[in-house]
């Protein structure tokens, strides 16, 4: 639907109440896959670059191969379930979801169906202004990821018109937890914002648990957003659509907003919504229809006969419960206090999705205000300009190192920005960038004094003014010295020297 045909968002909310639902897939960062001891590409410690190199007979479903459950993946799944406030099933079972599509070689996906490992939870999500919303969680279940298809031929690179497809099974069998919410009502005009906050909260949780790398741009965290509208006053839910392929926090928010406006326009014109999956297009900010639900969507689930039920002991569940990190909302309250940030400063960090980065940078030794300044300033600016996630550009440890260099006087802010740029460009660690680009501040007073004397000599009128006590006139000389030093001098020290030398 062209943007012009969409209903105005406020108007849509006047006529209809939005109901949301989310399915979030989290790739766990275990060393091996869910049912095979093949290296897991979703764990960055495994360096896998070539297609079909991280696979075993289990990943290909070769005859005679048998799946065996990864114990660590079960522990991670229980931890995640607990963090979502879920109950953990004393017995849960795997099931086969049967479908024919070459992204899995077995013609079925091992998932969980009527006996998921975690169910009936609730997650506290904080909106931008600090409002807390409880999102009801229906279940969190374990399953395996599918392989990657590349469609070749045709003009668009998409399935339509493709001549054939190439399959890489490296991702097949990566451990996944799928988190499914119950219908979320009452979000009203904040529905798009809640969508973003919900996914962001899940991301913070899995990162804090250390169970996923949670990089949306890499598909570690994927969100399908269900949206339906019901006319004001109606009890029954409307027909929903499921938008897939929403791979950034900003897209989640935009996709929900778009679907509300699109569906409202159709309904208000007397049309009906087709129950279907829709694809999100980042470039145009629109969704397009995928496949309608059909007879073929009949997965004939049945219990996986190759696997035993998962029966975590009560002791294990309690051990994992005790080891849970603080809940995100409680953690935010504590950090805000510890860092001494104003409401505005703190919200700026949270809303930029940079809380984890700032916290890690502080943990690496940086002063909180400095950590905040770099992440929400220079790094966010570069991320915005290059359409990247800030966290993918530079590590908290490197930011802390840069902050330390500024504090020790080895770098000025201006030089530090160049170091940030160098690190992001892949030139190495901050120390390496400083050395390679020659960015160290000139701390040798001898060289500075020579430059100061030269500058004072070339501006005798300024020298006179300084000697007359017009200290602010020193600015011109400081500027000249900084220029002569190529910016690699500490302005405060230069100022001291200018006043000192002028007095002589």
């Amino acid at each position, binding site marked *: 639907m062209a943007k012009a045909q969409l209903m105005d968002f406020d108007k849509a909310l006047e006529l209809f109440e939005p109901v949301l639902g989310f399915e979030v897939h989290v790739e766990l960062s275990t060393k091996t896959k869910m049912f095979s001891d093949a290296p897991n590409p979703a764990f960055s410690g495994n360096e896998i670059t070539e297609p079909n190199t991280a696979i075993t007979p289990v990943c290909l479903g070769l005859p005679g191969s048998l799946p065996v459950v990864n114990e660590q993946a079960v522990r991670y799944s229980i931890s995640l379930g607990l963090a979502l406030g879920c109950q953990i099933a004393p017995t849960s079972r795997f099931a086969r979801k049967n479908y024919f599509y070459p992204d899995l070689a077995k013609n079925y996906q091992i998932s969980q169906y009527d006996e998921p490992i975690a169910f009936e939870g609730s997650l506290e999500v904080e909106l931008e202004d600090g409002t807390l919303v409880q999102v009801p969680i229906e279940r969190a279940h374990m399953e395996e990821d599918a392989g990657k298809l590349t469609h070749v031929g045709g003009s668009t690179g998409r399935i339509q018109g493709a001549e054939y*497809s190439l399959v890489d099974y490296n991702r097949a069998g990566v451990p996944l937890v799928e988190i499914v919410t119950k219908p979320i009502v009452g979000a009203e005009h904040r529905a798009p914002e809640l969508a973003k906050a919900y996914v962001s909260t899940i991301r913070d949780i899995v990162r804090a648990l250390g169970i996923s790398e949670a990089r949306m741009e890499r598909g570690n965290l994927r969100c399908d957003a269900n949206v339906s509208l019901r006319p004001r006053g109606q009890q029954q839910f409307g027909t929903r659509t499921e938008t897939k392929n929403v791979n950034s926090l900003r897209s989640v928010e935009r996709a929900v907003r778009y679907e509300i406006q699109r569906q409202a326009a159709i309904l208000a014109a007397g049309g009906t919504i087709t129950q279907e999956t829709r694809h999100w297009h980042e470039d145009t900010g629109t969704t397009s229809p995928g496949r309608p639900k059909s007879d073929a969507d009949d997965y*004939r689930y049945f219990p996986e006969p190759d696997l035993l039920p998962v*029966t975590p002991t009560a002791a294990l569940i309690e051990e994992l419960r005790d080891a849970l990190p603080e809940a995100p909302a409680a953690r935010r309250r504590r950090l805000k206090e510890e860092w001494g940030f104003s409401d505005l400063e703190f919200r700026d960090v949270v809303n930029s999705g940079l809380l984890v980065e700032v916290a890690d940078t502080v943990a690496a030794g940086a002063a909180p205000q400095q950590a905040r300044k770099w992440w929400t300033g220079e790094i966010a600016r570069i991320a915005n300009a290059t359409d990247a996630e800030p966290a993918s550009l530079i590590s908290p440890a490197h930011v802390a190192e840069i902050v330390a260099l500024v504090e020790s006087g080895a770098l000025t802010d201006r030089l530090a920005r160049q170091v940030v740029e160098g690190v992001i460009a892949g030139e190495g660690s901050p120390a390496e960038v400083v050395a390679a680009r020659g960015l160290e501040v000139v701390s040798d007073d001898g060289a500075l004094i020579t430059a100061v004397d030269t500058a004072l000599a070339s501006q005798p009128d300024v020298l006179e003014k300084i000697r007359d006590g017009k200290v602010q006139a020193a600015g011109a000389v400081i500027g000249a010295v900084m220029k002569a030093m190529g910016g690699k001098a500490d302005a405060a020290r230069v100022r001291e020297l200018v006043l000192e030398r002028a007095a002589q």
Partner: protein
Amino acid sequence: MSEITPERVAHLAMLARIALTDDEIQKLTGELGAIVDSVAKVQQVATPDVVATSHPIPLTGGMRPDVVGETLTTEQALAGAPDHDGSRFRVTAILGEEQ
């Protein structure tokens, strides 16, 4: 009476991507019906105190530690492939999408 109807057999065949003739559908309707009816007799002896099971042996657990093992080489992986491009399996473009 069996719950297996010709319509159901045709639907299952479609799901399994198996082309069946009408004669085959008729024949299978009878055969599958007999199998389902036989298995259904178990329900007559299953009392409420018998827990549902998906496995003949009452085992649980059986998990493995998270330790990387041997993988196939690309050549081994592709050895049984009907077609490939040297590193990836090559399949007919199928109208569909990830589930």
